[in-house]
């Protein structure tokens, strides 16, 4: 296992008409990692994924996947990548078994054990026709078809979209199971932060076409802090605090969500003469919402090194 990133982009950019959908994206996905790609709807996640897979040409910039240029992905590279998309493409008249048989002919490394395993994990019947399957069952079938070629890189574009809690959990369990192969990399986009918290080693956050964070999940969480200042009277006006994402004001309290809260920032706050300052950790969801809120135009967490206060 080399330490070369499995996915690497530099300045990757794509315009639709005059509007950038992805702008100057620098991304490094370490091998063997579970990497979550986060951001609001329309932030450019799917466009990025389609460029990585060679389904969409970049306007400019570079990208490599498994060491290959994304502008010219050879078939042998594609065979090593499993791609599960938002819209599941299946022949409606086929049965579950037929879907497997059909798909297996395209993949020399097809592993039927994996196919059977996922099918049974989702409790699918061999003879059931695609058109009769529920959304969750279809997702299970698609996952089985994606996993059976034993891909070393798995790209999942919002895999849990529209799934009920049971199907969603089955999918997350399958992702965990996949980490058994240590050299397998999983790159997935999602809005389900509970799932992200369960499975991700790293996260990247896209916002309005721009990468705003890319680091380990832990670094991200450690970097965003909830700071509460209490005052004997009304809180004074707030000076410029670097890394301030959001501020909430109440009768005698100031609550600040800050990135890279450090000594200098604390000194500035102490100068306001609060009766107490308390720093607390914050949930992933609250951290991300603050990070993507209107206030934050800047990118604060782009590397592990930067995250050190």
């Amino acid at each position: 296992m080399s330490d070369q990133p499995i996915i690497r982009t530099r300045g990757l950019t794509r315009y639709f008409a005059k509007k950038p959908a992805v702008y100057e994206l620098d991304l490094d996905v370490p091998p063997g990692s579970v990497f979550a790609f986060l951001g609001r709807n329309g932030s450019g996640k799917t466009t990025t994924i389609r460029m990585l897979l060679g389904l969409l040409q970049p306007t400019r910039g570079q990208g490599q996947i498994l060491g290959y240029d994304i502008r010219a992905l050879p078939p042998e590279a594609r065979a090593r990548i499993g791609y599960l998309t938002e819209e599941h493409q299946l022949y409606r008249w086929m049965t579950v078994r037929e879907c497997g048989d059909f798909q297996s002919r395209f993949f020399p490394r097809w592993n039927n054990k994996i196919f059977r395993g996922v099918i049974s994990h989702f409790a699918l019947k061999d003879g059931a026709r695609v058109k009769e399957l529920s959304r969750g069952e279809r997702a299970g079938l698609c996952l089985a078809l994606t996993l059976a070629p034993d891909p070393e890189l798995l790209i999942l574009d919002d895999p849990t979209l529209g799934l009920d809690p049971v199907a969603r959990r089955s999918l997350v369990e399958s992702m965990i199971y996949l980490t058994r192969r240590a050299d397998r990399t999983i790159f997935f986009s999602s809005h389900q932060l509970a799932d992200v918290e369960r499975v991700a080693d790293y996260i990247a956050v896209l916002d309005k076409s721009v990468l705003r964070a890319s680091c380990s999940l832990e670094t991200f969480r450690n970097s965003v802090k909830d700071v509460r200042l209490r005052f004997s009277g009304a809180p004074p006006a707030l000076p410029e605090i670097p890394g301030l994402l959001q501020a909430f004001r109440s009768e005698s309290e100031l609550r600040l969500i800050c990135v890279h809260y450090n000594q200098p920032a604390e000194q500035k706050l102490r100068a306001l003469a609060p009766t107490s300052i308390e720093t607390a950790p914050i949930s992933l969801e609250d951290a991300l919402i603050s990070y993507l809120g209107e206030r934050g135009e800047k990118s604060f967490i782009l590397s592990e090194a930067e995250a050190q206060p």
Partner: protein
Amino acid sequence: MNVRIAISTGSPTPIYRQIAEQVRMAIATGKLRIGDQLPSVRALAEDLVLNPNTVARAYTDLTRDGLIESRSGRGVFIIRKRKVFTREEGRRRLEPLLDALIGEAMAMDFTREELHDLFQKKLSHWKHEGGAS
């Protein structure tokens, strides 16, 4: 293992810390004893539906604190029962819990005597369990 670890997502406490704290607490209260075995990283990860690295991170912290030890090929074991916190730190953590408890009790109109009796009863029960030492 006679201790069930349960994690919750969406908490301000990262999952690896939830796991480590629960094991620490189980050791401190005698629910886990020296020589007891913990599930393997992989087994606990699949049981809790977590990335194995998260469980590994919790075990690394517990190993660093000298509470558990991984014996190659055999598993992960509790090796030491120790005070998790200094007396002072313990008090700092305990007092808000006591305040909350007393507050709740007062809100439900328990008298001081009732509360005192309940507390004594609970304490003696713990003694039978051999938990508190």
